[in-house]
C-alpha cells in the first residue's frame, strides 16, 4: 500500500465548500512533509473516479469531506462513494478519516472488520457554525475556524507521523481547548459555538487499530 493520502473535496453547497476550503491546510502540511496526496475535486468526486483512483494509487489514508449517513459516505451532489453492503471492503486496512455525518455508526464498524486499519469519524452529525457575512470568503470566517481547524488535526497529525490514536486524541483535545477559549471570549456566539464543538467532541470516535501510522 502506498504511503499517501487520497482527499475528497466535493464543492456543491455551502457546507462542502467550507470543508473543501479548510482542507487546504491538509494539502499544505502534506506537501511540507513530502507525503504524496491526491485530491479528488468537485465533479471528480464520483464513485467511478474514486474507486479507479484508489485502485490505481492504493493510498493508505483516505480523508473524506462531505455528507453521509450511518451506512454511506457521499461525494459530489450526494453521489454514494462508499456504502455498506456494496463496496466497504475498499477501505480495509486503510486509515480512514470521514468528516461527514454519522458514518462511524455502521459503515465505520463494517469497514474495520478483520482490518489492520482504522476508521475515525462521527457517530453524531458533524456540525459547525459559520458566519453568513463571510460566505464569499470562507477561509476568513473565524467562526468556522473553531470547528474546521480542530477537526483538520486528525489527518494533519497522522501526516506528521503520529499514530491514529494519538491523532484522534489531539483533535479532540483541541476541541476542548477551543471550547475553553471561546467561552472566555464571552461574545454573543460563544455559547453556541461551545455547544456545537461539544457535539463534535462527543461524536468523534476511533474504531479499529489505534497504533496504525501512515509511514511505518
Amino acid at each position, binding site marked *: 500500500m502506498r504511503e499517501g493520502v487520497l482527499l475528497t473535496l466535493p464543492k456543491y453547497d455551502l457546507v462542502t465548500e467550507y470543508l473543501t476550503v479548510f482542507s487546504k491546510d491538509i494539502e499544505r502540511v502534506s506537501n511540507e512533509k513530502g507525503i504524496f496526496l491526491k485530491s479528488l475535486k468537485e465533479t471528480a468526486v464520483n464513485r467511478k473516479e474514486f474507486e479507479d483512483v484508489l485502485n490505481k494509487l492504493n493510498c493508505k489514508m483516505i480523508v473524506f469531506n462531505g455528507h453521509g449517513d450511518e451506512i454511506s459516505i457521499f461525494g459530489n451532489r450526494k453521489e454514494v462513494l462508499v456504502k455498506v453492503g456494496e463496496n466497504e471492503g475498499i477501505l480495509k486496512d486503510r486509515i480512514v478519516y470521514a468528516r461527514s455525518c454519522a458514518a462511524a455508526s455502521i459503515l465505520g464498524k463494517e469497514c474495520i472488520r478483520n482490518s489492520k486499519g482504522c476508521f475515525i469519524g462521527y457517530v453524531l452529525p458533524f*456540525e459547525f457554525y459559520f458566519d453568513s457575512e463571510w460566505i464569499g470568503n470562507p477561509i476568513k470566517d473565524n467562526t468556522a475556524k473553531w470547528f474546521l481547524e480542530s477537526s483538520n488535526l486528525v489527518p494533519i497529525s497522522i501526516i506528521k507521523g503520529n499514530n491514529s490514536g494519538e491523532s484522534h486524541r489531539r483533535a479532540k483535545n483541541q476541541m476542548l481547548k477551543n471550547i475553553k477559549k471561546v467561552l472566555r471570549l464571552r461574545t454573543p456566539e460563544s455559547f453556541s459555538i461551545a455547544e456545537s464543538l*461539544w457535539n463534535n467532541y462527543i461524536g468523534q470516535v476511533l474504531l479499529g487499530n489505534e497504533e496504525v501510522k501512515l509511514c511505518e
Partner: protein
Amino acid sequence: MMEEKEKFDNEINERMKEIVIARIDAQVPSNLKLAMGTYGEMSKEEMIEHVKKGDETGKQIVNRHILFLRALASGEFTRAIASVE
C-alpha cells in the same frame, strides 16, 4: 394507562421544544448559520422552525441540546474542559 403515559410524554416533548427554542433564540446571533451534517445549513429562524414542526431536523436539534444539557448537569462537560490547559 397508556393514554396517560402518551399524554405525559407529549407534554415533556412540548416543554423540551420550548426550552430548546428559548435557548436558540437567546444564544444564536442572527448572522450565524449552523451546518449540521446531511441536515444541511440553517439560520436561527430555520432552526426554530424545524423544532416547532418536530420534523427529523428538529428532532436532531432537540437531541443535541439534550446531550449538552445532560453533560452540563452530570459535570461531564466541566470535567472535560478542566482537563485541558
